[in-house]
């Protein structure tokens, strides 16, 4: 009798520990999503500001400058266009500027040109990385939330399922036949 009770108690304890471990994992994943999101936000913001710096640097012709400034403006004006589209537009505007024939030759040797171009490229690459990491942890979180135990016991509580962030973030056109991938 006592042995039976001991087994039931032990089983309940084990189940409790397991469930709380799963819940803790989902919770930690949500925290990681938040962190990855903050990192992604920061890289997008940095990309916008170096793109604007390039636009106002006087290194480019006014039309290219205006094109970039306009795309940066689009990423800040969140009311008019969904964020993923606005950020993709900035990618394409940068790609259009960078893929002009002899683009580098045209501004090479000007003061600060090389540093600024390198900075834009670095910022764009960071967006690519941050987005990849963010989507990875989103995928893991969504997976954990989908497990039967998590669903039945509502282990994710009231936290909403995180969304993937899809955008065009490649500074290099994928194939030359379709310019800029548009």
């Amino acid at each position, binding site marked *: 009798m006592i042995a039976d009770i001991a087994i039931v108690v032990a089983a309940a304890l084990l189940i409790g520990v397991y469930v709380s471990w799963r819940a803790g994992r989902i919770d930690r994943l949500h925290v990681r999503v938040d962190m990855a999101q903050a990192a992604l936000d920061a890289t997008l913001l940095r990309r916008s500001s170096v793109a604007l710096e390039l636009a106002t640097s006087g290194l480019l012709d006014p*039309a*290219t400058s205006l*094109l970039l400034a306009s795309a940066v403006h689009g990423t800040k004006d969140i009311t008019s266009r969904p964020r993923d589209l606005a950020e*993709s*537009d900035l990618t394409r505007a940068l790609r259009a500027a960078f893929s*002009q024939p002899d683009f580098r030759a045209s501004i090479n040797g000007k003061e600060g040109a090389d540093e600024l171009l390198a900075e834009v490229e670095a910022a764009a690459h960071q967006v690519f990385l941050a987005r990849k990491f963010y989507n990875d942890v989103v995928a893991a979180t969504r997976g954990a939330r989908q497990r039967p135990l998590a669903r039945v016991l509502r282990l994710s509580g009231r936290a909403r399922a995180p969304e993937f962030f899809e955008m065009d973030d490649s500074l290099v056109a994928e194939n030359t036949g379709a310019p800029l991938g548009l």
Partner: protein
Amino acid sequence: MKIGITCPYSWDVPGGVQQHIKDLAEALIDEGHDVSVISPADDDTPLPPYVTGAGRAVPVPYNGSVARLSFGFLSVSRVRRWIKEGGFDVLHVHEPEIPSLSLLACWVASGPIVATFHTAIPRSRVLLVTYPVVRTGLEKINGRIAVSEAARTTLVEHIGGDAVVIPNGVATRRYRKADPLPGWPGPGGAIGFLGRLDEPRKGLQVLLKAFEVLGQERPGLRLLIAGPAADPGDVLDRVPAALRDRVILLGQVSEEDKVRVLHSVDVFCSPNTGGESFGIVTAEAMAAGVPIVASDIEAFRQVLRGGEAGELFTTGDPGDLARAAGRLLDDPARRAALSAAALVAVADYDWSVVARSVLSVYETVVLGSTQVAVTASGGEFP
């Protein structure tokens, strides 16, 4: 006069600005002026002799959609060369607030510059116009033209300064002659409509209501409708089932087909309920010489000379429209008279008249000025 005109958008793509420039340039050439247009264009596009290609336009996201524009230092050098070799008395840039050839031309040129603003700039974009590179270009402009009151308003309110309003003209010659679509207008008669089907201000709903009456009275009468709609099926749903096979929807049509549509009907209807500042479609119908029945909004009353050049009906009243259209369908002599009067009246809106107004702007800005030249720095990169 030697006139250089810049087009910001690709010549291969149909569009309002390109069409405006083409019509203006041809009207100026007809007046004996020497006109050169520079425009983005694909290398293999056949261009009229007065157009210089500035190379392929690049599709870029702009203002929430994809535009085909020319930018970059190669475009700068092409514009610079064009200005140097052109020896223009006046430079006429279109849409200089767009990141394309017109802005670049403002940047590299000195001398008399006229700019035409085609569209109202949305509030959210105004900030960009005050952006230094644009500002510097815009400040070089000596005379500004807006094609509509709305376009002028943005200039006055947000950029500062004023502009003269010179509306688009009608290339009346292009509308004068065309073959009707096969089988039209047909023995029972036909009424035509052009415009967006799902925009209430265009008034198609008024015409459809009137057709319920007209269609029942006249067993052979047909309705020819051309224009885009999000859901064309919705239009047919609004027509009684018995009349549905006599309402023909063409969808969006090409410029050429638009002219043919106008020549395919006995009566053209402009049932707009308001919001038109000029009524370009009505003017085009006048140029085609098709008898018109139009709502008596201010714009139509003006272009139709208070009813002399077309029948007017009470705005938004299907009964009155049915009576007016019925009268016209029954009276070939009246139709012929209206058609002749419309052809005379529309001459006031012809591009040749518009071109003369634009020319007087040119003549004003060249006073006391030198030829158009490349700036001292030559638009070299600073």
